């Protein structure tokens, strides 16, 4: 799609008002309850059918940026995929697999947190205590500040510390240790000490009915804590590769696992040891008309939105102008939220001229605000529309309101159409 055609669409396309929005939601609800036959192209993509997921061995082994870490690092096989195997795993199994490798290869590695010896609330540590011993995989008392501080001490001695905070909502009692101690350890000791071997894993984002303290996405709160890295995987392959990279990265990493994906995201995952790069975004769908940027769970809402845009079901068709349906949207997974991949995002926006950012945290001073500010200052003259954010409401996550607070595919679609038609 070229700029002139969008400009003409802009005149043709009616701005979606809030009432249109609610009509859209109604349309979608009808669709999902089966009140209407499925569209010709089949059902909308869901996490189960997502094309983002690598469900074949071939696709998994060709994951972009994959770096194999075989026992024999100099082996000529290192970058080949022949002979490598994959296994079907969901996200929690992939996380477990990564920790299994870390524990097996690194005698100093320990895994600890509330109830982790029993597998943890989300089963990410299932069987690790039995396999590696209770002195390496152990339950801690209920004390998040203590867990973080303890992990910092262990890591400062050069040991690999893999801590779990049971829900990312409980990371706030540990906030001081992470922001004041972990992030600044290297700096304030003039480089004599560091806690690069600390990784804090924590389940994050919403599941639809978690309410106030089980639905938050706290990544934005850490944005000012230089020294830390914040990583959010979208799938099992990503979780394994990014977690292994996080564990071995010479900086402390907070690894936020989207909890709704633990079971629902399933891929073929290479069984070997491999890493995926931190600090690098990944283009999942290349495009030229608009950059759609997100991380974690909303990637799947974005995928759904793109399919609604290209092939709207009958109930939505009148609201989706023909001229917009062929728009080529570039879908990017940011993956590392801190430090975020400015270069890749700017490069994409320079080409597309349009940016929509989606996140589950609330709007004010969310990660999207930082990205939008940076993009407008670096790509101002290339922008064809204001940078648009789709985020949660600026309210706490009220239990019964969760579905109205967290953005979904319809909100993404609406923002994409408006930005295209600006």
């Amino acid at each position: 799609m070229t700029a002139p055609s969008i400009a003409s669409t802009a005149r043709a396309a009616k701005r979606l008002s809030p009432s249109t929005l609610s009509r859209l939601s109604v349309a979608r609800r009808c669709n999902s309850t089966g009140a209407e036959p499925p569209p010709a192209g089949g059902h909308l993509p869901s996490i189960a059918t997502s094309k983002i997921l690598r469900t074949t061995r071939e696709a998994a082994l060709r994951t972009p940026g994959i770096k194999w870490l075989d026992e024999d690092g100099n082996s000529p096989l290192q970058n080949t995929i022949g002979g490598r195997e994959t296994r079907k795993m969901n996200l929690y199994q992939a996380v477990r697999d990564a920790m299994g490798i870390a524990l097996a290869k690194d005698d100093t590695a320990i895994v600890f947190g509330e109830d982790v010896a029993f597998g943890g609330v989300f089963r990410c540590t299932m069987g690790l205590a039995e396999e590696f011993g209770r002195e390496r995989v152990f339950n801690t008392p209920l004390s998040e500040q203590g867990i973080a501080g303890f992990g910092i001490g262990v890591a400062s001695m050069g040991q690999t510390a893999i801590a779990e905070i049971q829900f990312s909502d409980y990371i706030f009692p540990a906030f001081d240790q992470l922001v004041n101690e972990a992030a600044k350890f290297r700096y304030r000791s003039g480089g004599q000490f560091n806690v690069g071997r600390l990784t804090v894993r924590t389940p994050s984002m919403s599941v639809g009915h978690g309410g106030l303290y089980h639905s938050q996405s706290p990544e934005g709160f850490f944005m000012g804590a230089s020294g830390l890295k914040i990583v959010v995987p979208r799938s099992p392959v990503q979780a394994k590769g990014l977690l292994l990279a996080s564990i071995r990265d010479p900086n402390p990493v907070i690894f936020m696992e989207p909890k709704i994906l633990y079971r629902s995201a399933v891929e073929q995952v290479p069984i070997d040891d491999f890493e995926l790069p931190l600090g690098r975004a990944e283009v999942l769908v290349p495009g030229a008309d608009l950059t759609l940027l997100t991380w974690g769970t909303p990637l799947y809402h974005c995928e759904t939105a793109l399919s609604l845009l290209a092939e709207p079901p009958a109930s939505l068709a009148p609201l989706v102008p023909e001229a917009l349906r062929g728009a080529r949207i570039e879908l990017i997974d940011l993956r590392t939220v801190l430090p975020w991949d400015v270069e890749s995002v700017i490069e994409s926006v320079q080409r597309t001229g349009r940016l929509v950012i989606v996140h589950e945290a609330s709007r004010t001073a969310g990660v999207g605000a930082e990205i939008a500010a940076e993009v407008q200052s670096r790509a101002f003259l290339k922008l064809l529309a204001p940078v648009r954010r789709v985020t949660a409401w600026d309210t706490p996550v009220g239990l019964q309101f969760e579905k109205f607070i967290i953005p979904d595919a319809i909100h993404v679609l609406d923002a994409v159409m408006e930005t295209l038609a600006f």
Partner: protein
Amino acid sequence: MSSLARLRSRVLPTARQLVPFARSLQTSADTTLLTQSIPEDGSTPFTVKLHEDSFRAYNTDAPSLDVEVTKDSLLKHYQTMVTMRRMEQAADALYKSKLIRGFCHLAIGQEAVSVGLESSITKDDMVITAYRCHPFAVLRGGTITGVLGELLGRQVGMSNGKGGSMHIFTPRFFGGNGIVGAQVPVGAGIAFAQKYLERPSATFALYGDGASNQGQVFEAFNMAKLWNLPCVFVCENNKYGMGTSAQRSSSNTEYFTRGDKIPGIQANGMDIIASAQAVKYARDWVIAGNGPLLLEFVTYRYGGHSMSDPGTTYRTREEVQRMRSTQDPIRGLQRYIEEWGVATDAIDKAAKEEIDKAVEQAKASPEPRAEDLWTDIYYKGTEPPLMRGRERDEVHVY
């Protein structure tokens, strides 16, 4: 009627008595002895003697084992405990039929703590606890419909459906708090205000054996002792924090001794007469200006930690079964009551009817109003001009 005395013969291991803490607390619910015959009249007090291992004390004297009760008060205890259990069972059923979503923590097995506490305090006293809060919310001035409605996320819910199971409040009950341990220093602050405002009342800040290891619990202890606050720190030790047993989480499982210079009482939390007596003692202690007190209830939760936990992976079915069949607070009390020839069937039936009615009322209540989404964030009239929603068009203008 004095046949109550036949129920348990008392054994006195005198030699062991000399060693502090060598004896362990017992948690049966039916070992109280009658010391006189029971008066006909329901409101005439009579004295019973609690089992000698009902309390242990740290740096203070234990509460008296002689307790004055009335037939009416015991019947009331029974009725309230039965109703609370029925309410929790109703929540369980509503959850299983998928009408309640999200998190839900039941207090089945722990009724003697909440009901015993409420029976020994006044409406000027304040209570704050963690997420296992449904009975407290009702007893402290809420309604069963209000609690079930909150679990269902309906308008009749006591937090307008915003809070859910873990966040229920009344003017005398500061919740229902989902962040484990966070409620304890809040309790110290409430007690400070009571003292500052010269109200002769106490704050009861409750937490679990698991929560007892949060740093802020110790911070609260120190502040309360330093400033001599009328705060009772109540540890509901049900022996597990999620899947982790007390022994695995706490270097010192004698929770009543963990206050350093703050004295403590450990009480049988399965016997409502003992728990009510302990609370009375604690309340008198702090109101007399003695500063804070630790009060540990040894109790047990029959169900899993929350609805997704079957509760049998980290403890044996036999252990749960044994507690249910031998130490149940409701059955224990029922046994005394029936000894006097007072039938409990009518009470049971009335409790069931009350709960059934509340369930229907709660279910009939509509979902919350849209405007509740953005109210109660800031004080009305002082909020920002608008609250921003998911995208640009979605804005609430105050």
